[in-house]
């Protein structure tokens, strides 16, 4: 009988918290944003999201098959990448755009660097940056809310349906083209998942409640965007509108689902706060002084890149550590 006992080193018990549970909860948190996207832009938003998710899963599975690796699509991380990638696309892009984006996100950004946990960039953001550089026109045409769009077919007469996003209008004229309430609900042009602040906030509260993300990075990012949005105003220093800065564009989506990505964010609270502040500053700087009307993608990508440094120089306060000790 004694041969049957398992011998191993401690600890012998573990929490019932698993990677795939976390990922599934993130997917649940993304549902409100998808529903609002579908409400504002029609069924095409859902089709794009589905194409993006399926492409990501297929590319990940293909990579594993070709390289004779264990199948990893069960951890659901590819689904999240797919959903997030679709959420930061304009609804009018042709359907092959998310397929190309999924290839870039899964194969180039994620798997070539070692797969889950090894990527230095957020795959969805990396893919968006790639798409934006390669097909700048398709990626910057935004349709007005509540237009009747074809479900699947490419949109022919896109100029008739398109309208400038509030950020683009603000950049050109310094005027607000939508009310705060429109921005809050999502009655504006923009990417599929980012238009509705309230939908993203519901996801945020869900993730906080489930203890999947910590509030440090999102709050730091939001507050920093508000602060720098006021300091670096479109019409001169200290004239900006903090509330508009936060509600417009993809700040909320980035704060809740992008900057909180485990792999590409620091592990300490202080590191996350600093990352959030840097992202807020860069977002506003790119918006106001840069060539693009929106800066969330690049701002968060810069934070992704400095994450290893933040984890190296910002360690938690160590028990029994001496003051001013060398790292």
């Amino acid at each position: 009988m004694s041969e049957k006992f398992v011998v191993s080193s401690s600890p012998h018990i573990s929490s019932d918290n698993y990677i795939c549970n976390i990922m599934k909860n993130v997917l649940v948190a993304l549902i409100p944003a998808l529903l609002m996207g579908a409400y504002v832009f029609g069924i095409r938003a859902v089709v794009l999201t589905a194409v993006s998710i399926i492409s990501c899963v297929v590319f990940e599975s293909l990579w594993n098959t070709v390289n004779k690796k264990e199948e990893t699509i069960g951890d659901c991380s590819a689904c999240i990448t797919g959903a997030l990638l679709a959420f930061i696309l304009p609804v009018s892009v042709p359907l092959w755009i998310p397929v190309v984006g999924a290839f870039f996100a899964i194969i180039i950004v994620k798997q070539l660097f070692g797969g889950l946990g090894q990527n230095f960039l957020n795959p969805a953001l990396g893919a968006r940056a790639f798409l934006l550089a390669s097909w700048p026109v398709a990626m910057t045409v935004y349709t007005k809310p509540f237009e009747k769009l074809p479900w699947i077919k490419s949109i022919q007469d896109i100029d008739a349906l398109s309208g400038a996003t509030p950020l683009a209008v603000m950049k050109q004229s310094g005027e607000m083209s939508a009310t705060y309430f429109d921005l809050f609900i999502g009655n504006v042009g923009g990417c599929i998942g980012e238009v509705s602040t309230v939908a993203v906030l519901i996801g945020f509260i869900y993730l906080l409640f489930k203890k999947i993300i910590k509030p440090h990075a999102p709050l730091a990012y939001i507050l920093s965007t508000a602060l720098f949005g006021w300091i670096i105003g479109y019409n001169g220093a200290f004239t900006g509108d903090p509330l508009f800065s936060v509600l417009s564009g993809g700040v909320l989506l980035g704060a809740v689902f992008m900057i909180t990505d485990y792999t590409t964010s620091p592990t300490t609270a202080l590191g996350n706060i600093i990352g959030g502040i840097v992202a807020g500053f860069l977002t506003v700087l790119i918006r106001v002084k840069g060539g693009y009307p929106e800066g969330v993608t690049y701002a968060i990508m810069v934070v992704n890149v400095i994450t290893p440094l933040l984890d190296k120089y910002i360690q938690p306060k160590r028990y029994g550590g001496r003051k001013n000790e060398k790292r």
Partner: protein
Amino acid sequence: MTVKKYTFKGGIHPDDSKGLTKDIPVKVLPAPETVYIPLRQHIGALLEPCVKVGDYVKKGQIIGNSEAFVSVPVHATVSGTVKAIEPYYHPSGVKVPAVVIENDGQDTLSEDIKPVGEYYNLTPLQIIDAIRNAGIVGMGGAAFPTHVKLSPPKDKKIEYVIINGAECEPYLTSDHRVMLENTEEVIYGLKSIMHVFSLDKGYIAVENNKPDAIKALREAVKGDNSIEICEMITKYPQGSEKQLINAITGRQVPSGGLPADVGVVVNNIDTCVAISRALRTGMPLMSRVVTVSGKGINNPANFEVTIGTPFEEVAKAAGGIKENVRKVIMGGPMMGMTQYNLDTPVIKGTSGLLFLLDSEIFDEKEMPCTKCGKCVDACPMGLMPLYLMAYSRNENYDGLKNYHILDCMECGSCCYVCPSKKKIIQHIRVGKAKLQIKMRKEN
């Protein structure tokens, strides 16, 4: 009146599973027919046997001793004949020389056993001597000789004496039962230690998942201002010496230092009882309270077990083990050691004996680390376990040093919270050992 509750930073909240045994009174288990007494039951030197095969020994007689300061003698726990002195199974997993005594059932007491006296009539040195002679060690699991703890270097002034009744490991209830059933002895033991350092204040720390123990202790010290019963917020590893000290005194033991460096001495509940008995009756440490629990045992119980009793006998007394037991653990599920053989004897550091089924242990496939940082939040020492694991695998010694791997006390909180089920502690243990070998070579 609101009572202050003490706690520390980091830590985890595992299911405590104490309900299986917490209300079951301690039952004295009769000594078995043969006892196996290992000559190493503490941290420190291996003892030399001072009896020969064929000798008749009396209960309480010293059978193994050493000149080394960091060591305590072991005593015969039954009277009878020495059958063998040979390497035998030991909870640590390696065989250790043990004295095998066949019990004659007479319990003939050694003549050396006589009361030392009440603590207030003794000098500190007499108390410390008596504690060493009684073979008393820290009974929370680590088994560090108690007399060494009570003899700090002259330049360290001890200001706090804390008795550790946190018992933060899941399943274990031995300290809990002792606090309820031997309240007076616990307090007597604490007062003896306070007397050693001439302190007029002592602390007993109890986690607030044991309200009955807190109540019993508070009632026992009613009107006595010299002892404070500290209610600790239930969180693992509250019973860790360093976390306990931080919670109660606000001080932090410096990296690489000892509690005495910040003027604190921490002792275990059962150790206090042993001290009280050693002084008032002269009885050395020959038995201890063991929690026998887990879903793999038929009748979970708390037993007072004679040191040297094989696990098999203890399991039998608890109704026997179930067919599908997967792991046998000495100690708690967070830091305990797995056992492969039920012939292994109970030693001074055996606080619990757990028989766990598949459903109670984890045996999950490791997933890649996603750098979620949950281990960083859980680490009570403020380390970054994910990087320690990575550097240990890469043999990056500078990284290990810069991220302070030697501060890790292997509490396992990081493994517990890891959603990827990484065996972080195992990698850290390997990294620690490699780093220490390398540092020794360099010097």
